[in-house]
């Protein structure tokens, strides 16, 4: 092996040490769930021809609003929001009680379904026939895939589950989209990973009654825009159901992904009270970034509904020149944001500058000036530290080597900016 082959071999070894982030599977699943499930072309054709006939009969269907039924869905308080637990207490939703025995004495029970326009939850119980303790890998025994039925083919978007202290019973809620109102039966497909690594697919069919779905309280068009530093957020509409409230819209913002969870500073208020946020998601489509923010249900008495954009990703152009100090640490202010220079060191390859800022501050277009000007290569060793000023982000910027180092140039800064803008949704 010559020197180059040896270096290539070493290079490969270093590459092999790199591991994908632990949430990779989660992120890929979430991304795929943003796009529609692919269907067979032949089937799509059939669908199109039947839909035309069905439209006529749609107007005849009425959902009885919030009808009461004798049986209740009980025992899922740990895996649902208080609002949904209250709805179940009132006897809403459809109790089912279909059981299915499989594999090594496992019993799956579909306990019930609570469905509305914003979300559909299917409640289930997993236990052993003889009531014994579940295996350690119980979560691999039941991996729900999708719900199929008449004009229904919905992917399971997420599952929340909880195991009891004895480790004998798992109770869970699967989240999916609302089935077609004409579906009378639904089939859940789930995969089981057996202990020798094989895969089994199972199907459980249970009755569905669209009359027990919850009616939408109301829908409202918002269609209002909010200007932010590098673009516009458009709030398009709101759908309120007894279980949740969904705000949808689009964002044409160039630096949207430069802070984490840009929408965390957006709140929905009913008569001045903030509603709990249940989920927030963005997806990239043909028309730019669209978003969906899911909040708790509106209180029945709510009269005044507002959306408040307290903060969102912002950008400030700086073009600031900073003379490099001889002593460390040294603090600078970048348009009100603190920048702490912790050290500057020369390694064999790079000039390494360790800096600290608030958690949500990201510098853009950073260069070092010495005999010549050099651009940043990469950022490494990022850590977070909780201080009395909030969470601070510490990282090391690597630059190519340059002699007679004088100053640093910072083009601009991305940060979580206060906007405090309010939109009236309903008055």
């Amino acid at each position, binding site marked *: 092996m010559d020197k180059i082959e040896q270096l290539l071999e070493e290079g490969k070894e270093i590459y092999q040490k790199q591991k994908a982030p632990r949430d990779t599977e989660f992120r890929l699943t979430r991304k*795929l769930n943003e796009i529609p499930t692919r269907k067979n072309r032949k089937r799509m054709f059939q669908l199109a021809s039947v839909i035309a006939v069905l439209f006529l009969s749609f107007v005849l269907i009425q959902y009885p609003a919030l009808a009461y039924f004798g049986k209740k869905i009980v025992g899922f308080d740990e895996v649902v929001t208080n609002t949904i637990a209250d709805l179940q207490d009132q006897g809403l939703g459809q109790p089912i009680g279909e059981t299915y025995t499989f594999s090594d004495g496992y019993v799956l029970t579909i306990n019930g379904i609570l469905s509305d326009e914003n979300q559909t939850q299917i409640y289930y119980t997993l236990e052993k026939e003889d009531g014994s303790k579940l295996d350690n890998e119980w979560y691999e025994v039941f991996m729900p895939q999708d719900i199929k039925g008449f004009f229904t083919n919905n992917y399971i978007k997420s599952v929340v589950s909880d195991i009891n202290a004895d480790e004998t019973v798992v109770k869970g809620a699967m989240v999916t989209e609302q089935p077609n109102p004409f579906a009378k039966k639904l089939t859940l497909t789930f995969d089981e990973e057996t202990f020798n690594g094989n895969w089994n697919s199972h199907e459980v069919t249970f009755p569905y009654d669209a009359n027990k779905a919850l009616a939408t309280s109301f829908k409202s068009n918002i269609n209002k825009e909010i200007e932010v530093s590098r673009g516009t957020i458009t709030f398009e509409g709101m759908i309120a159901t007894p279980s949740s409230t969904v705000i949808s819209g689009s964002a044409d913002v160039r630096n949207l992904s430069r802070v984490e969870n840009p929408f965390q500073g957006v709140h929905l208020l009913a008569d001045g009270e903030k509603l709990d946020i249940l989920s927030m998601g963005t997806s990239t489509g043909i028309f730019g970034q669209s978003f969906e923010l899911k909040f708790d249900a509106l209180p029945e008495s709510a009269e005044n509904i507002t959306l408040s954009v307290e903060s969102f990703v912002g950008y400030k152009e700086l073009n600031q020149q900073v003379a490099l100090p001889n002593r460390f640490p040294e603090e600078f202010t970048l348009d009100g944001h603190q920048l702490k220079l912790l050290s500057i060191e020369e390694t064999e390859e790079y000039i390494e500058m360790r800096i600290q800022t608030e958690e949500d501050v990201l510098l853009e277009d950073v260069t070092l000036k010495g005999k010549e000007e050099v651009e940043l290569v990469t950022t*490494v060793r990022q850590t977070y530290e909780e201080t009395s000023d909030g969470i601070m982000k510490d990282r090391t910027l690597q630059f190519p080597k340059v002699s007679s180092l004088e100053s640093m140039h910072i083009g601009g800064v991305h940060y979580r900016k206060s906007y405090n803008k309010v939109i009236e949704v309903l008055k």
Partner: protein
Amino acid sequence: MHRLVKKAKRGNKRALVKLINEERDAFYRLAFSYMKNEQDAMDALENMIVQVYQHIDQLRQEELFYSWSKTILVNECKRELKKSSREILVESFDTPPFKHMHSKNEIDHADQQMEIERLLSKISRPQADAIRLKYFHDLDLATIADIEHVPVGTVKSRISTGLKKLRSLEGGEKHG
């Protein structure tokens, strides 16, 4: 694997996630080597899985699933790099729940800055890319040819010319 690919072809999302997840480190390394930071590498991976899902019925030979999807990944990376070359992005950030683990990876990667990367930066970009894909990511010549949109013969000559240059650079530096 064949069974999972068949399932994915029928539109089963879970099967596709499982397929990619089984080779997730290899996919991640490949994306990282182009994007140079975790955030953008993960974005590329996300875009790849959407492309793969939407076009998997065009994949005729199931055994080629991994090399086919890696081709798509590199295309996504290149598209993203082209797009962002207008905007200079200087920092990257991690996703919070796993950030400590992530930065550890980046430390490992950065602390051992490679002699070979320094040499690779001195030869032509297509030659360096072909060498990286073959030696660091274990891709076969046909896959590299697909990724680079060139015939297999061109890949071969890029690699051999590149290696020759690397050898002369290495030797030259030693003596000079």
